[in-house]
């Protein structure tokens, strides 16, 4: 099998590109080194669909941010993932802040951001009563939204797979060769994969992939960001995504509702060398908590249910200067190799637009126009939520599928029916975190204390593997070490 396009990386970017390509005739594949999609930066970020006033005008970031943001509402409906158009507020506490906010407004205008305006303290506090009394005004961006980044990634990847894209999991790329006939041979830990075009959407490792192909020399440096998550009983603290302006403490943190009804705050920004460093720290957690207190005083720390860290990819040129934009281009030397690198914020927002942009690039590479895939189905039915249904529908769900009558995750009211569906779906869960990312089982107050033994049993049963083979998130993350008898 010679693929027309092989996409290296199964994060939100790779998934969006794959889904876009699957609209056309051809053989496409995603090569993902982890055991699931959305295992890198895509699962641990702020989940914000940015309005687009922050990106520098004239950059790809700005263009694709605004385009992507406009695409989310429709895609969320057709691909069945949670998205909420909750709007965002950049909050100012003094004259300097308001000056900065004015500049953001102007930048937003230049970028073509819709529904953007500066509001005063009175209107701000009407919209957000919990915001500090010290706040004196804000930039209101009504086109901003929140999304579950891993649910979205899964939805795009699954729709791509439903439309013929092949997903290689646990397949790490070790080398890329271009043979004299112009074909790429991708050497992986499993088998070799041949493709006419290669898309490098490898996130934190995009620099290594580019180097393997002998393409553009750039460096991806990791920036670790810590977050904390509040119990959903604190949901009324914020309805818009609340940003801060930079102050002498550095870049602020956001406080945002999530689509799941929690409050999320973060991120910090710790630059380092270790791309795999996703640990939280006492200092980082204190930093997020203290900074979030500027926006919403008296956040109850005892209501924190979880903390996590994500690593984002910042691109630098070979000479060490920051690129400060997305790198999305066919390589000048290695034809047919497309770099999609340095996709840090607003990467999640831009991803659907990146899909279109890259499809265009490849069309030019092929020289021939894309032909529509007649079997393409652009709609995906996700997993119906028991919790969100009314009593009548709940009764029906249980009748249709008795497994909907057994609650597994009591904190989030997730049933066995949903968990089994998550495992059996076209891009199904293969471990506990995969079940968690698809159903939310384990994300509630007790953080999987109650449901993890049960989810482990269900995974063992549905995947026909022994309990001791069930993992938390790929690799050697086994839950149990052996039988007692």
């Amino acid at each position, binding site marked *: 099998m010679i693929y027309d396009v092989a996409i290296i990386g199964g994060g939100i970017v790779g998934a969006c590109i794959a889904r876009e390509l699957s609209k056309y005739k051809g053989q496409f594949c995603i090569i993902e080194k982890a055991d699931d999609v959305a295992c890198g930066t895509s699962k641990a970020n702020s989940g914000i669909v940015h309005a687009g006033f922050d990106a520098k005008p004239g950059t790809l970031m700005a263009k694709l941010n605004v385009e992507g943001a406009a695409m989310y509402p429709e895609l969320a409906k057709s691909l069945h993932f949670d998205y909420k158009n909750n709007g965002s507020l950049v909050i100012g506490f003094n004259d300097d802040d308001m000056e900065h906010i004015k500049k953001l407004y102007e930048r937003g205008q230049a970028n073509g951001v819709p529904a953007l305006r500066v509001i005063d303290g009175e209107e701000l506090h009407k919209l957000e009563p919990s915001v500090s009394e010290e706040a004196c005004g804000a930039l209101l961006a009504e086109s901003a939204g929140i999304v579950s980044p891993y649910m979205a990634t899964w939805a795009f990847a699954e729709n791509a797979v439903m439309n013929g894209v092949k997903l290689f999991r646990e397949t790490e790329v070790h080398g890329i060769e271009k043979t004299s006939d112009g074909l790429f041979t991708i050497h992986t830990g499993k088998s070799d994969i041949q493709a006419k075009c290669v898309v490098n959407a490898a996130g934190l490792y995009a620099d290594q992939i580019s180097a393997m192909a002998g393409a553009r020399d750039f460096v991806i440096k990791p920036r670790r960001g810590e977050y*904390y*998550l509040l119990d959903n009983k604190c949901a009324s603290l914020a309805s818009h995504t609340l940003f801060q302006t930079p102050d002498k403490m550095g870049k602020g943190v956001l406080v945002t509702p999530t689509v799941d009804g929690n409050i999320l705050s973060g991120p910090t920004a710790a630059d380092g060398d270790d791309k*795999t460093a*996703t*640990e*939280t*720290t*006492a200092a*980082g*957690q204190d930093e997020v908590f203290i900074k979030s207190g500027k926006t919403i005083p008296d956040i109850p720390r*005892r209501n*924190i*249910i*979880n*903390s*996590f860290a994500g690593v984002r990819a910042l691109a630098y040129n070979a000479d060490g200067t920051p690129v400060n934009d997305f790198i999305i281009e066919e390589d000048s030397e290695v034809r047919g190799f497309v770099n999609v690198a340095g996709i840090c914020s607003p990467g999640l927002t831009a991803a659907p637009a990146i899909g279109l942009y890259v499809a265009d690039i490849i069309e030019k590479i092929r020289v021939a126009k894309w032909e529509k895939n007649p079997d393409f189905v652009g709609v995906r039915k996700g997993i119906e939520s028991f919790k969100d249904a009314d*009593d009548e529908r*709940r*009764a029906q769900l*249980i*009748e249709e599928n*008795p*497994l909907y*009558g*057994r*609650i597994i995750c*009591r904190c989030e*009211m997730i049933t066995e029916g949903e968990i089994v569906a998550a495992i059996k779906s076209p891009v199904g869960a293969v471990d*506990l975190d995969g079940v968690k990312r698809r159903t939310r089982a384990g994300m509630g*107050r*007790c*953080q999987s*204390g*109650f449901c*993890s*033994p049960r989810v482990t*049993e269900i995974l063992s049963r549905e995947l026909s593997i022994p*309990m*001791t083979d069930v*993992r*938390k*998130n*790929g*690799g*050697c*993350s*086994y*839950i*149990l*070490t*052996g*039988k*007692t*008898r």
Partner: protein
Amino acid sequence: MELKYDIVVIGGGPAGMAAAIAAKKAGTDSILILERDTRIGGILLQCIHNGFGLHYFGEELTGPEYAARFSDEVEQLGIEYKTDTMVLEVEKGEGSHSVTAINTVDGLMKITAKAVVLATGCRERTRGALIIPGTRPAGIFTAGAAQRFVNIDGYMPGRKVVILGSGDIGLIMARRLTLEGAEVKLVCEVMPFSSGLRRNIVQCVENFNIPLKFSHTIVKIHGKERVEGVTVAAVDSNRKPIAGTEEFIECDTLLLSVGLIPENEIASGCKIAIDSATSGPVVNEHMQSSVPGIFACGNTVHVHDLVDFVTAESLRAGENAAKYVQGKITANGEKIILRPGNRVRYTVPQYIESRTQDGNVSIMFRVTDVYKDVYLEVSSGNEVLKSVRKKVVRPGEMQVVELAPDQIKSASGDITVSIQLPQEVAE
């Protein structure tokens, strides 16, 4: 599906079973127990160690044996129960309440109940709530979840274990895992004393030469995919880690035994008054909540140490639920508030409904710290109703004091339960 019962008991553990049994014996027949697990018995089913029942049965039983005494009686009395059934919510009403529950066989059920008994137990505090820094690998378990894997499913959670928290569950699991061949390298406790029973310190930790460090906590978890170790540090009197005392301990498993919290999702949902000191419903001497006809008992009201006390409290709740259904409970408006005084963290019940009582009223409470040679004082206004000398009182050991009807009747206002030092006791 619509059902109707006089009493619905939510939870089929020791609390729920005792409540149902008492209600039946008190003359109400129409009772339904709703249990989310596949059998009734509750958390006792996985507590395979002994130490249960010394007070109530005069014998030392294992958890499953204690549970069986009650589940046998539930069967003998013909009390109905549904297993594998989860209650989604309780809607309070006038005269009756509506319980929504589901299971795979009956589907969605709406059950009308004249009285509801909440016996939903408690949950474990999590790593997330403690904000322990580090990575998020596999191999981190709450002690109860690990206990379930070992004792019910027959699986080991790990081979080299560090346990955070010296509460009873952590101590019990230290012994259990050692007996099953794991190496328990350390039990680490942030307080300067254990909240668990001293007998467990001896028979679970000392007898197996497992290191136990007080005033220590875990400051970092290591390991990308599976736990590889933890960093432990000493803490100061404010429980803050002391820089320079960090020590890395290699292990593949971290067990958390860092506190139990009453499970009151359903209680919150039907707007029952919750006591912030216990995190459980405010109840009176009938174990009735702030909502008429909704009773509560067991760990959902306050976390117990001894199941025998759960049983006593739950028998009371069930009997009163039956009396309520039979119209025999009336409020005569002579409410007396019970207040936690010096060195007392909370009391259950939080108030006494009636100044006129037929029998003694048991007040359960916990103290705020370890105190030796003190006086347990129950007073109202300036009058001391009762004073009992106590050699030692500990936060980890629930205390009980009984008030006689004449003592309650003579109270001039609120009744305060306190621990007084000898020099504070009035002449």
